[in-house]
């Protein structure tokens, strides 16, 4: 039954099948008034159903050898287009180097770690770094910060933004080899203005917000990063129906993937850890289990190595598994080498 593969509600589909409209050709030859009469629905609803049916079954013309599937690209074109793929620096050179330049756009990156390791700090740093202007090598974009735990501290963001502006003027002086400090146009106030902050308090609010992000971003065109801190918080408590939770989470994951791909932005998800009983002992594992672990393109795990904070690439299609150390300073995320005075921005 071809009609089952149309994205319609169950009642609409049931009505279509019971009145004999089981194939796309039968729908294409029906008018909306016929449909409305046969299915006992309003004419507007019938028009919508017909629109869905015709958009799915339009036979597109073949043009050229790689239109085997319309809307497809071939790998060679993608390779060359990706050389202009932008990354968002984390302000820590070691971390950037294991990430291949920074957090990639068009991909969903999950960052997980124990409480206190610096996930929120990294999130705020990325929200600031995405705004680094293109003449300093950044993306010059805006950020969306979705806070589910209430851990975003505006004073801290302001402190890190100040530090970023200072670093940028020092860097542009280095770049232009001037002795005077170059006036960088961006100011701390502008940086804070370009972070769109949302606070969500329940999982329904979270799902609703993610559904509306696409339209929001189309209206505010320069958004280049969406940070969700943390994505799993509301799904861990008070969820009686685990099957519903899995469905909601996987649907959310697909929407985020689509957002990242279509709007060319980076999606960064923070996740918490939980204790899991594996192979006879309790080990730390990321929350929400195995199905959620497939919902990201890259995964970075933050952990303590003695007294040092380290990051490890756990999952990536193209990066080697590697780890790097970083530290959280008053100026933000930086290299952990305390002897390194200059912050290498690019």
């Amino acid at each position, binding site marked *: 039954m071809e009609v089952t*593969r149309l994205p319609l509600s169950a009642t609409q589909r049931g009505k279509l099948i019971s009145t*004999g409209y089981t194939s796309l050709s039968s729908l294409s030859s029906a008018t909306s008034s016929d449909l409305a009469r046969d299915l006992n629905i309003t004419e507007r609803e019938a028009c919508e159903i017909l629109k869905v049916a015709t958009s799915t079954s339009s036979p597109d013309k073949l043009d050229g050898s790689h239109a085997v599937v319309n809307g497809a*690209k071939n*790998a060679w074109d993608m390779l060359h287009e990706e050389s202009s793929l932008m990354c968002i620096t984390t302000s820590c050179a070691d971390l950037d180097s294991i990430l291949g330049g920074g957090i990639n756009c068009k991909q969903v990156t999950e960052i997980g770690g124990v409480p206190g390791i610096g996930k929120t700090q990294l999130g705020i740093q990325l929200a600031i770094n995405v705004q680094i202007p293109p003449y300093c090598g950044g993306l010059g974009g805006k950020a969306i910060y979705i806070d589910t735990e209430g851990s975003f501290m505006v004073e801290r963001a302001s402190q890190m933004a100040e530090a970023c502006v200072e670093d940028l003027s020092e860097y542009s002086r280095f770049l232009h080899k001037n002795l005077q400090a170059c006036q960088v146009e961006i100011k701390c106030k502008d940086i804070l203005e370009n972070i769109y902050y949302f606070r969500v308090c329940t999982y329904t609010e979270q799902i609703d917000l993610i559904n509306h992000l696409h339209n929001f971003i189309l209206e505010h065109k320069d958004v280049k990063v969406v940070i969700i801190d943390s994505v799993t918080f509301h799904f861990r408590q008070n969820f009686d129906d685990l099957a519903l939770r899995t469905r909601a989470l*996987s649907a959310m994951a697909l929407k985020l993937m689509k957002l990242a791909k279509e709007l060319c932005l980076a999606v960064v998800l923070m996740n918490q850890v939980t204790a899991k*009983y594996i192979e006879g002992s309790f080990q730390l594992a990321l929350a929400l289990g195995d199905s959620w672990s497939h919902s990201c393109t890259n995964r970075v795990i933050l952990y303590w190595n003695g007294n040092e904070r380290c990051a490890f690439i756990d999952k990536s*299609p*193209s990066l080697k598994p590697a780890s790097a150390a970083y530290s959280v300073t008053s100026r933000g995320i930086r290299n952990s080498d305390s002897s390194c005075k200059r912050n290498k921005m690019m």
Partner: protein
Amino acid sequence: MSALKSLERYYPILDSHFQSFCASHGIFTAEDFLTHDLYVLAASAEQQPTAERLKEGIAQVLSIIDEWHRPWLNGMELLEDAERNKHVLSTGIEGIDLILGGGLCQGQLTEVVGTSSSGKTQVCLRMAANVAKNHTGKVIYIDTGNSFSPQRIESFVARNSDPIYIQARSNIIQKVMSNIVYHSVFDIFAMFDVLHQLENNLTSQVLKEDCKVLLLIIDSISSLITPVLGGSGSQGHALMTTAGVLLKKLAHEHNIVLLVTNHMVGGEGSNLKPALGETWKSIPHVRLRLSRNNGSNVCNLSVLKHPAIASSLAATFTID
């Protein structure tokens, strides 16, 4: 798949009188004939004043339905088809090829299942690069998690390439990579669209010889099915089974190697089992399980199900 109304155009005997007679029995389409009791229908037709015409109409519909079933094949024809059309394509990974008798077979749906970061995407990328490099034909890569990496493909293709001249090498890499077609889908209906489009293009034979599709990869099909599976109503199950049937049909009719990936979920105790449940278990022809030792590049592959090879055969290979 046709309502009686649309058949009237071609077979005038199925006129509105016939249609209203059938409607009174709850029959609106030709398929409904298959699910209703034909004896009751014939008996009821006998009692109508226009019995003869109605019975002619019924006979006409039954003969239309007869034309729809696929032709019978005998064993020799199947064997010839297998020898001529269903070859084994190497995956590019020696360890896997060794236990699978050369690689993955055309006409079969192969599933690779494994936990997160166990190497499933790497196997898909390797196979795509290998098939594109060693055979003429297209590779279609359908990605749901933005994990397709053209850089990895390039590194696989460039490896062991014979020509030493940079220009010739670059031309070869370009030619090979142009044959890998990439599409991203983010919900199951979009995947159906892509598959149906592909099916239409392949059956209408508009494509030239070098546009033959050799390999179709869906990474991963479980992330498309999990959001719709379960809950009230069985639509999710129906979509999953329809997808399986469509994929196997594409594989068999057009001699394509079909490779899909699946993830694992918690089972009883602390055992992991493949996602998508019991119904999906019987859909792929071949099921392979991947796992990777923590922190190393070595992957283990074991055969969960294969029509020609013993299960629980295992192999290891490295990702580099």
